[in-house]
């Protein structure tokens, strides 16, 4: 089996700061995703990537940048953290088609902005 590793697990930042989250997978999957989880709003797609060096915007891409320099890794940057922002960011990977619905998720990175 494989695993998705997200670092850091907890991230505390200051308002206006640029913050980066990292995700590694050893499934050898082509497609990787970043979702944001907020209470009452579900999982919202920020960015996804269908192959190395590819980037596709999700519904929530504004305020974020992403980078897929290697097949196994996918980074997400919060370009300017918002005061009092709190959210969990979930990374996932899958084979190219989602008809199977099989996304493998990491355990999440919890962001707190002071």
């Amino acid at each position, binding site marked *: 089996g494989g695993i998705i590793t997200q670092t850091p697990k907890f991230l505390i930042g200051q308002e206006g700061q640029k913050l980066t989250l990292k995700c590694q997978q050893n499934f050898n999957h082509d497609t990787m995703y970043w979702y944001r989880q907020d209470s009452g*709003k579900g999982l919202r797609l920020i960015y996804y990537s269908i192959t190395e060096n590819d980037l*596709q915007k999700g519904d929530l891409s504004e305020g974020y940048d992403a980078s897929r320099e290697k097949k196994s890794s996918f980074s997400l940057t919060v370009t300017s953290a918002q005061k009092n922002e709190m959210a969990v960011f979930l990374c996932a990977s899958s084979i190219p088609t*989602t008809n199977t*619905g*099989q996304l493998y998720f990491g*355990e999440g990175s919890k962001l707190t902005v002071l």
Partner: protein
Amino acid sequence: GDSVTQTEGLVTLTEGLPVMLNCTYQTIYSNAFLFWYVHYLNESPWLLLRSSTDNKRTEHQGFHATLHKSSSSFHLQKSSAQLSDSALYYCALSGYGGSGNKLIFGTGTLLSVKP
């Protein structure tokens, strides 16, 4: 665009009672694929169920759901709730975006099962 609606944010049940979590969807594609994910506290979300053909029931780990295209629904059910079923449940739709594949999730239903 494609969307998934879960009307209940929180469902609280007594152990042993039946579970039904609602999920409806909208999509322009005739071949919709629906899924249920479960997210236990301090764990990663994982796939619980995926839809089969129209009006066919799918089951896994005591839960079941039936895709009804006529009503655009894929409700999650279980005959008898257990304490260990307490978790956040997401319904998701396979959306065929113009460039690539992605899952569209609903807002989630928190199921709380009490003794």
